[in-house]
């Protein structure tokens, strides 16, 4: 009862104080809000960009290696240098049998300038012949209603085609392509699926949106290619991609008779290694972002402290008056602390609210062009909360110590304060 009464008295005083210090309070709240928004948004965009970069770099496929056959540069076992190496279809089984580290593998045949026709629409595109595992390795996910080339297509050499979404749009427009018949170099094929849209920042034959995929068996049947253009493979978890490379040099070296140390005989594009580089680059960017964030925090902190200091003179005299009227040190400090707490919570609340609103607003902008790489900013809660706490603490300390001092010295000194 007594406590409730004391609290009501205290609130009465506080409300009065708030009314008095409207401008200063508003400025302090603004400083904390602004600081919180700046830092939270900086970090939110950093998260968004990182995710987009990660997405884009994994658009071609995650953890895959592209393998091409090259040309020998060393004489070996009496054979001259400069021999071209070509992968044969049976090499796929050879790798599966002899290189334990390889997880999934698909040879790939390619043919450029293949005509794909639907009705009166006709386009000329790249068509690849692949194995069913290719789809998952290369992130060829089907849009709802469709599917990728499967084992049955492969085994029965079905004339099934999986289309990049751009090709599908070009020839089908708004019509659903799945189940429709297209002519591929004049031969009828059934569209079994269309690729979902994805970000892709790297490729070895142009963007995946712009080509078609058919079973390797069908491909050989139609085009008669005797050699793979390349292999796509992934390694088993925990296996070093370099070890697998060495195994492949050994296996192919003995089959095609080249020196396993002849680095030009086989070419690898190791996206696992590349992802690691990207990760490090982004780590650098992130450290830079944190640095800027830290600097912004300091500036915002100085702003908050500055506002508090400006008010000291007026505040100190007022504390002197109140002390002369019989206020206790506790009255003054408790009131100050409540005020600081209010400013901190209110400023922080507004800051986080605005940050959320702004990031949400960015979500409404269509992800096209540069926006695609800006991605979806995401508020990092620990960062937002640490920012609010830091700024509040600075504001609190820079006001608290002068207030405590004013309440501790003789009232006459506080009254005389200039």
């Amino acid at each position: 009862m007594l406590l409730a009464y004391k609290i009501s008295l205290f609130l009465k005083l506080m409300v009065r104080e708030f009314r008095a210090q409207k401008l200063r309070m508003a400025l302090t709240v603004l400083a904390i809000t602004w600081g919180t928004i700046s830092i939270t948004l900086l970090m939110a965009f950093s998260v968004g960009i990182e995710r987009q970069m990660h997405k884009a770099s994994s658009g071609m496929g995650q953890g895959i290696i592209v393998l091409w056959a090259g040309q020998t540069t060393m004489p070996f076992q009496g054979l001259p240098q400069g021999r071209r190496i070509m992968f044969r279809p049976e090499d796929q089984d050879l790798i599966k049998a002899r290189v334990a580290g390889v997880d999934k593998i698909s040879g790939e045949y390619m043919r450029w300038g293949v005509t794909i026709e639907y009705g009166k629409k006709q386009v000329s595109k790249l068509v690849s012949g692949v194995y069913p595992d290719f789809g998952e390795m290369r992130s060829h996910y089907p849009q709802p209603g469709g599917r990728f080339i499967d084992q049955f297509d492969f085994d029965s050499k079905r004339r099934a085609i999986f289309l990049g979404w751009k090709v599908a749009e070009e020839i089908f427009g708004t019509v659903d392509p799945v189940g429709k018949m297209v002519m591929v170099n004049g031969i009828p094929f059934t569209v079994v699926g269309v690729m979902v849209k994805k970000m892709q920042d790297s490729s070895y034959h142009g963007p995946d949106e712009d080509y078609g995929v058919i079973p390797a068996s069908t491909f050989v049947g139609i085009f008669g290619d005797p050699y793979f253009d390349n292999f796509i493979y992934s390694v088993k978890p925990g296996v070093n991609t370099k070890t697998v490379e060495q195994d492949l040099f050994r296996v192919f070296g003995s089959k095609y008779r080249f020196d396993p140390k002849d680095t030009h005989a086989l070419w690898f594009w190791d996206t696992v290694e590349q992802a690691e580089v990207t990760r490090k680059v982004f780590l650098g960017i992130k450290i830079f972002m944190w640095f800027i964030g830290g600097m912004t925090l300091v500036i915002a902190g100085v702003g908050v402290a500055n506002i508090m200091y400006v008010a000291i003179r007026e505040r100190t005299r007022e504390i002197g008056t109140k002390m002369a009227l019989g206020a206790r040190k506790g009255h003054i400090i408790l009131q100050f602390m409540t005020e600081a707490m209010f400013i901190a919570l209110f400023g922080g609340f507004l800051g986080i609210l605005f940050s959320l609103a702004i990031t949400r607003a960015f979500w409404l902008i269509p992800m096209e062009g540069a926006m695609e790489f800006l991605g979806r900013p995401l508020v990092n809660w620990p960062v937002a909360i640490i920012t609010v706490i830091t700024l509040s603490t600075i504001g609190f300390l820079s006001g608290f110590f002068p207030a405590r001092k004013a309440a501790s010295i003789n009232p006459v000194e506080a009254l005389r304060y200039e």
Partner: protein
Amino acid sequence: MNNNGHLISMKNVTKVYKTGKIHVDALRGVDLDIGRGEFVAIIGPSGSGKSTLMNIMGCLDMPTTGEYHLDGRPVANMGIHQLSSIRNKKIGFIFQNFNLLAYATTFENVELPLIFAGKPGAYRKQRVMECLENVGLANWAEHKPTELSGGQMQRAAVARALANEPDIILADEPTGNLDSKSGGEIIDLFEQLNELGRSVVTITHDMNIAHRCHRIIRIMDGLIESEKHNGNGRDKNLTQD
């Protein structure tokens, strides 16, 4: 307990201000007794130490050496909370520049000491209005100090000083910022308060005001130079000032 029945009793009180290496002897050994119901004027030139003396009297400052008993209790032994409580309940302080909180209404300014004393709301309301009526500001309760004249502001300050029914009113040049008519009204108020039995001590430069007090204490260079009891008449030596 050594108070000889006096409300204020000072023995050899000194006050030294130290600012860096400079020492200022503001008070150099003041002996002073003020009894209940007295109406005392303290006069003296600027820098003579009268404000220092008043601040010590009002427990706003502490003596460097010497004894000060307020209502029989040695102030030197009091803790910070006790001093707050004394300032709140026993003393009503009035400043030359009013020191009203600019953002609060007249009512709220007068209410402040009652809040610090922890008085309940209903009592506060009644008491504030009583005090404002006493000083003739009942109609100005909801106005801000900035809407009041200088004389009204000082009357509001008097009302605030009276809120907790203190034993003694201490006024540091209460009329210094007022025209003579408003100043006269403040002194009228002091006389009324004094007639009701309250002790009043006021610093003043104005001899007309000093002569309305019962006793005139003249401070010079940190010492009491002379003391005069007015009775009814005027002291010729002092009027020359």
